[in-house]
């Protein structure tokens, strides 16, 4: 009898790429890896033409998507504008999900403050965002409320363990990549693999 094909779920991570957001970025990766999911982000896409098509392709490939809309502030540097990338990509994912009638809604919105999204993105009224409060623990408990894996259900302390381990190894990974910026393709990919290795160890059967 032929072996059933293994399927891995990929999660599209739509988050702001800012230095202030580094902790939550690592926390999201740790949380998703603890569930045995593969995080994907637009960081993987090289800056070139037809970027939008590649983003669309990536969003289509992923079964689930997580959108953090907590950065709604204006950039302190000139030009002082807010980031529209996250709401835009959320819109793409929502449109794609609504096209596929067979598919259940698979996009999740995260926010730092409760009720703020009612003003910043009132079209989403009726969709409760997950509030992480800008904390690592909040970002880790978010996936816990969304996903459940029978047999290998990670706990928040286990996720914290993965997160702490990643933060410890972060300087080495950055040094290896020859950069100080966490939001690069190489660093993102390395962190994802390291998180998965750590999760495989930390989350027991």
């Amino acid at each position: 009898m032929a072996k059933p094909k293994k399927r891995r779920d990929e999660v599209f991570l739509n988050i702001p790429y800012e230095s202030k957001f580094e902790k939550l970025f690592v926390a999201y990766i740790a949380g998703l890896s603890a569930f045995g999911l593969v995080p994907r982000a637009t960081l993987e896409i090289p800056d070139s033409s037809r970027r939008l098509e590649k983003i669309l392709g990536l969003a289509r490939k992923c079964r689930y998507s997580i959108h953090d809309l907590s950065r709604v502030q204006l950039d302190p540097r000139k030009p002082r504008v807010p980031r529209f990338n996250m709401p835009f990509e959320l819109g793409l994912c929502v449109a794609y999900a609504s096209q596929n009638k067979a598919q259940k809604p698979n996009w999740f919105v995260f926010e730092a403050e409760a009720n703020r999204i009612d003003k910043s993105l009132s079209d989403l009224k009726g969709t409760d965002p997950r509030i992480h409060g800008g904390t690592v623990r909040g970002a880790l408990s978010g996936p816990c409320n969304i996903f459940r894996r029978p047999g290998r259900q990670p706990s928040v302390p286990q996720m914290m363990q993965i997160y702490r381990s990643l933060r410890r190894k972060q300087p080495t990974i950055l040094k290896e990549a020859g950069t100080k910026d966490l939001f690069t393709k190489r660093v993102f990919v390395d962190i994802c693999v390291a998180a998965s290795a750590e999760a495989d160890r930390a989350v027991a059967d």
Partner: protein
Amino acid sequence: MERWAVNRERKECREVGRRVIEHGSMEFDYCQGTVLRFYHSNVRRGSGMDGRGWREIGSLVRRTTSGMPTGLSPFGLMCCRHNSLGGCGDCRWNCSREASIFEFRDDMNMTIVLDSTFAKPEDVGKVLGVPKARVKWLKRLASSQTIFSGKTAEKKNGARTSASAKKRNHVRGKAKKAAR
């Protein structure tokens, strides 16, 4: 039916009920709207058990088990997916007799039960296009208790001990010296 057989059956019923209640209280979040289905040989589909929260199920199970007709086996459970009695080989939803009393449902789309395989570092590397050697190095990095420095990383085998480990060894050495 013999009295001992009836007693045994009742005990088994209680055990099933206890498992449902315990598992429900542990695994299911009533506030999140997560629901479960409980199929029993004498509780068929559409009998009102569908889509109830675990508290309700608990009370129903208690009611069912206390008034269980003696001729019915408490393990006459339906495989929720394949509609077969007892264990089901094809089903991944723990349909063995031991744990086949539940089916997880996400009717409310509040909790998603992942049915994919747990992604190992090799799988993640494959998806993200990381070379095997690098995956190996990252696995080693993740499992190491020591901090790799840039200099020693060039040497390949070297791994510098962390500052805390150094301090620990230093203190241990001092204690040994004092003991001498």
